[in-house]
């Protein structure tokens, strides 16, 4: 399902921050994990992901570092900063609030997406 750009604009950064919460990841890995974990809904190409990562880096929410992978290849890994963790926590709360509101309106089914506390 193709998600509206405005929705993606709001969801994309949160999704990426959430994925990085589990540990530093590189670009390709993020794309694959996003697609897999969201059933393709949050499938974003390199054209979207890398600019998004650069913006998060500019905001100080993630930091980038070149590392040697186990396969002796150089990869650029992105990790969450302390500021990024705080932002993630804040955004998650916001999404939960939205989800609860949507539940109340009948847009979402109860119990979906961690909407209940």
């Amino acid at each position, binding site marked *: 399902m193709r998600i509206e750009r405005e929705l993606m604009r709001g969801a994309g950064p949160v999704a990426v921050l959430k994925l990085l919460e589990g540990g530093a990841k*590189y*670009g*390709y*890995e993020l794309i*694959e994990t996003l697609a897999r974990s969201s059933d393709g809904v949050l499938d974003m*190409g*390199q*054209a*979207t992901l*890398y*600019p*998004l*990562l*650069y*913006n998060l*880096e*500019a*905001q100080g929410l993630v930091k980038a570092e*070149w590392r*040697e992978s186990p*396969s*002796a*290849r*150089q*990869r*650029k890994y992105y990790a969450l900063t302390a500021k990024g963790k705080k932002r993630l926590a804040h955004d998650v709360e916001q999404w939960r609030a939205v989800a609860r509101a949507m539940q109340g309106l009948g847009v979402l089914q109860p119990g979906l997406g961690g909407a209940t506390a």
Partner: protein
Amino acid sequence: MGDHFDLTPPASWWGRARFTPVTDALHGQLSARLDPRTLIAAADLPASLSELIYAVVQGACLSRAEKVDLTQELIAQFTVGLTAGGTAEQLASDFGPAEQAVRLIRDSKLRNAPFHWQASHLPAALVELIDTVVRRARLWHSEKLDVMRELAAHFTDGLAAGRTAEQLAADFGLVDQTARLIRRGKIRNRPLLWHAARFMLRAVLITTLACFVVYSLLAARFYFSTPTIERNYWVEANNARDVPDADAGWPLYRQAIVMLGSYEDRKATPMKFEWLGAGRQGKHWDKVVAFVASHQAAVTLAREAAQKPRLGYLLGDPRDRDYFREVNADWLDFGKAVADDNTALVNVFLTGVQELRGIGQLLAADAQVAAAEGDGNRAAESLHAAIALSDQIYQPDSFLVEQMVSFACFGMALEAIEVIIADTLDVLTDDQLRDLAHRIAAYRDGKIRLDFTAERAIIDDILQRAYTDDGHGDGRITAAGLKLAERWQNSYSNPKPADNDDVLRWLAGPGMSAVVAGRAETRELMTRFFDQAIAAHQGPPWRWNGDAIEAVDHEFRLAIAAPLGKVRYLFPNLVMPGIMSAFSAVEHAIQARDAAEVVIALVLFHRKTATWPASLNELVPALLPAVPADRYDGQPLRYRLRDGRPVVYSIGPDRHDDGGQSTPDPYNAFAGNYDPPSTEPDVPPLATQRWANEYGDAVFWPPVPRKSEE
């Protein structure tokens, strides 16, 4: 490439300095770390790999920074390979020939894209894609390399995951949009200082552009607007002055002026008016006599001209120029403008009127010489002619200059009368003295005053030539107006401005037009100044209010002294300052007239009674209608007997009665300002107060020679 290279890092000071970054040099270290050889040596790789790296780096025509990047890249590549267990030969074989790498790098340079070694191993389509994105992102070199590395790593991961180059390229997205988004993201990561500099640069560019737009609009408005000249003030002034030739004295006067000779010629028989003040006892009297004797023809012409009812001097009369050219009187400058040209009235040359001072001087000198020779009739004739000349100069709508020349000539005639009476008491008969007294009283029909009609016309003419006319009395300054002001100002300035200032003036014009006051405001300031100056000088001078006079001047000077005031009030600043002193010139003329009347009355009294009166009241009403006032304080003109002889005097600008004592330079007392002192504490004291003890009294009789006579 089988060449062997000298990979020894530079040892000499200069060799190391060439490859040392400025930051290292400032810290006192000649690190030479911009030299690939230094980096290769530090890496301690096998010789074959070191040479391979150096061959690629040197052959690829890179900038110094690119060489360093590539060297580090390849060193890292081979180091990893060796660490993974590869041999130098295997790694070199896998790398491929150095020439191939060099060719790849040069191809990327041709495409203006940075080269990155990791990207070079990808399929051509993906390399091309990365190149295109990186090139269109228009980033710094280091940013380009970073993006290239990351995208290369991404595609490498994708290929390793089993995807094809075509699938990866298809999933990439729109190249232009991606490049734009990547650029935006990378720019956000740039240092704060860079962002500040970019903001400042944009602010400067926007401000410059805005200024340019505003300036262009101003320039268009300025250079495309023109004044509307509707009136020819020259012709209008001449219509009031024009008289039939038979009634005009000027044609005869101009002949007499030519007879006086050029300024060079006059050096042969010099004549200074100051020499007349000492009379026959003066040390230059012989020169006065010689001067008069050599110009009798001019005297005759002047007397004839003085009998004409009017002067008939026209502004910009081409007949004058033609006449003076015919008689080779090229020393007289009448300017280029003639009345029909309708140039600015302010450009009028009053050369002829100025030269009439010399005629007045000649007549006064002739009268004194005639009196010294005992010829009372000739003396009286010349005196009458001199007074008539003074009246003629004061034409309808005269310029202030002409009025001043009239006062000057009148003063010369009065002084000559007083000197004659002092020198040769009996040469003029009673009837001649009475006739002179009546003629003196009749000067200007008895009403000596200023007429600013011509000056107001100058203002109106300036406004019509300098400003547009919106039909409601207002308008804005034009390029022609600024040029007029500049020409006017340059006539006063010394040295003259250089011609190569034209470009600056052309550029500054629109800016100035935004500052210079509009037509209505300029007119209001100038006419208000005239009206207030006239109002402050109403009535006799001893009733003038010094505070009010000072306020007029002060207000005007405040306006000019304000920031940009001299530019904003361009024309008032050029025109106005001179008129305040004209009011005192009128009072001088009136006082001199009154004093001469008193002197004549005293002489007639003495002739009748063989005594001098104890006071001037004794002359009233038989010889004087009334005792004239001392125009400095309104009290009767001062009179006293000293050593049995009368002294007639005014207390002078210091308003202190010194008993008829003048100072070593008596002219100061005559030249004093009639404006009373201001009472305002903050106002600087007038000259009269500053020099209170230096003026003495203005003694009219007996005549006191001027300092220059001595």
